[in-house]
């Protein structure tokens, strides 16, 4: 496969995200702009201007009309995707490290940084999915995390829970309606921050990435660890692919240590693991720095990675990727095919 290199950013990427149909790719970086790209050919559709600081996070609503971004200038902003128009700005006392729309796009959560005497919080905002509507200033809910600050958070299926990953390696489950803390379970190693949390397509389980060099697949309902993917480097991001049962992990040495090591040792590769068998099945290299963020196309055709080196690389999978099967998978497939044939014969 030939990766498409997107060089629209001048500084390290912080997050990339596909929209639900998988045709648009949004990227944000520590320089102050948001880019949107066509995923199939890497053509840039536009940029969104207004933030005054590094942008940490981005999310797109399920209908691909509104975009939310969170930045180090202490704001969450809403944008019209089609034109790049700024729709709304919410101010916060500290930087916003994560935003995510709920499954239906009616709510937005934001994770604010713990700094300057303010505790880390998760705020929830009501969103009207209409570019001309007046968005309300009011926060629907604020969850204050007193123990360990949240680093990532997301909405489970039906907005039933808010799941948050913390700096101390634990995962919390909050009630999505009233914000009550239901569980807090230490899942990753103590004091190894959780760096990413991405959902499966139906939001019943999610994958985490942590600096403790592992990634875990966890259910949303009771926070049960289903699978563990061990890596040999601190991880910054993890995602679940569609169509094939794989997960993609991205990481690499911390940016501050990079200059002391060669590119080979830096482990700046996207790692593919089989989602069910937990074994590593391949790596894709290409970045000159650690991978800060990886995202899988919801249609299963491609994946993209954004690195500390300021590049986004979109990879469209080729045939070998789809053909790969474990022996048991192949046998199962054959058996199913035979059964179908028999059914067709009898019917």
């Amino acid at each position: 496969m030939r990766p498409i290199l997107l060089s629209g950013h001048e500084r390290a990427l912080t997050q990339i995200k596909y929209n639900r149909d998988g045709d648009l790719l949004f990227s944000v970086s520590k320089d102050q702009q948001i880019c949107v790209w066509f995923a199939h050919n890497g053509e840039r559709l536009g940029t969104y201007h207004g933030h005054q600081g590094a942008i940490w996070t981005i999310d797109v609503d399920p209908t691909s009309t509104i975009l939310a971004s969170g930045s180090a200038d202490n704001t969450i902003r809403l944008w019209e995707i089609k034109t790049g128009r700024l729709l709304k700005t919410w101010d916060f006392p500290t930087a916003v490290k994560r935003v995510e729309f709920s499954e239906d796009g009616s709510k937005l959560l934001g994770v604010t940084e713990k700094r300057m005497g303010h505790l880390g919080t998760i705020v929830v905002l009501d969103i009207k999915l209409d570019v001309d509507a007046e968005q309300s200033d009011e926060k629907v809910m604020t969850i204050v995390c007193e123990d360990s600050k949240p680093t990532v958070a997301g909405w489970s299926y039906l907005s039933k829970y808010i799941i948050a990953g913390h700096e101390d390696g634990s995962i919390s489950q909050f009630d999505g309606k009233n914000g009550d803390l239901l569980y807090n379970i230490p899942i990753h190693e103590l004091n190894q921050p959780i760096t990413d949390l991405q959902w499966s397509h139906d939001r019943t389980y999610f994958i985490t990435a942590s600096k403790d060099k592992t990634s875990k697949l966890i259910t949303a309902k009771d926070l049960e660890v289903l699978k563990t993917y061990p890596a040999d480097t601190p991880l910054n991001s993890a995602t679940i692919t569609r169509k094939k049962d794989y997960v993609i992990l991205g990481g690499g040495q911390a940016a501050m240590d990079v200059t002391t090591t060669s590119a080979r040792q830096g482990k700046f590769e996207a790692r593919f693991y089989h989602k069910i068998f937990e074994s590593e099945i391949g790596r894709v290299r290409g970045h000159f720095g650690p991978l800060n963020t990886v995202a899988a196309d919801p249609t299963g055709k491609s994946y993209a990675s954004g690195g500390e080196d300021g590049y986004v690389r979109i990879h469209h999978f080729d045939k070998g990727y789809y053909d790969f099967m474990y022996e048991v998978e192949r046998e199962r497939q054959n058996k199913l095919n035979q059964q179908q044939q028999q059914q067709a014969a009898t019917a």
Partner: protein
Amino acid sequence: MAALQQKHDWADDDELEETSTELPPPQKITNKDGSTTIIEYRLNDNGQKVKTTRRIRYITHREVVNPRVAERKSWAKFGLSAKDGAGPAPDTTSVGENIIFKPSFNWRQDAKDESKDPNAQAMKDKLKDKKVKCRICNGEHFTARCPYKDTMAPIGEAGAGAGADAAAGAADEAAAASAGAAGAGKKGSYVPPALRGAGAGAAAGERMGGKYGERDDLATLRVTNVSEMAEEQELRDMFERFGRVTRVFLAKDRDTGLAKGFAFISFADRSDAVKACAKMDGFGFRHLILRVEFAKKAA
């Protein structure tokens, strides 16, 4: 135009073309195989005439696209990209070098070949602590430097001499042996090709066939008259009915990617291969009749 040129002597031709500044009109020829050849002429910076011939094949590729996606493709660009034309802008989008990514269970083994160098380094480090030991007197010097070199035989070889009178005989034997054992002992001394066989030469000779030689050809079928459009997976599916298939090789043209018309199928079990050979010979596949036979060892 062609007729006009024929009247000229060929020697004049060159002169004529140089003087004429007008360019022949571009030509469009439709080829038999459905492709189109476009011939264009232009003048380059030095005023020379340049002929460009392009052969183009149009393939209509129909795709069903989500209407929402199709609508978004028509959106106008904005922000920093507002001035960009249609298609990817070269300053923000480029194509990287091809990456071969094939998932496999044992990718780690494949990757290991690249990391052989560190292993060699480790071996060196291990040897670094080894002490030099003389084979004659066990002293801490090289055997060649041993003060007893001329008076004593090496410790291991004392028995090998196996005789009291064998001073001269042993020397002869040793010489013959060293010649036979391929220049391994004495570096640089010439060993005739006929004598090289005993040592490493024999192994190298056997390996001539490469990795293919090691394969068990007993349960391998050669399938010929395979359609150009065939895929390995199709063949695998067809032959898997008879037993476990360990390998499917479909020869493909490197440029076009079309199959060359033959394939090899290896079975885990020879009896399955026999069955498959009997059943599949003469099988109709993609409008062609397959010919299946046991693969012969390459001569």
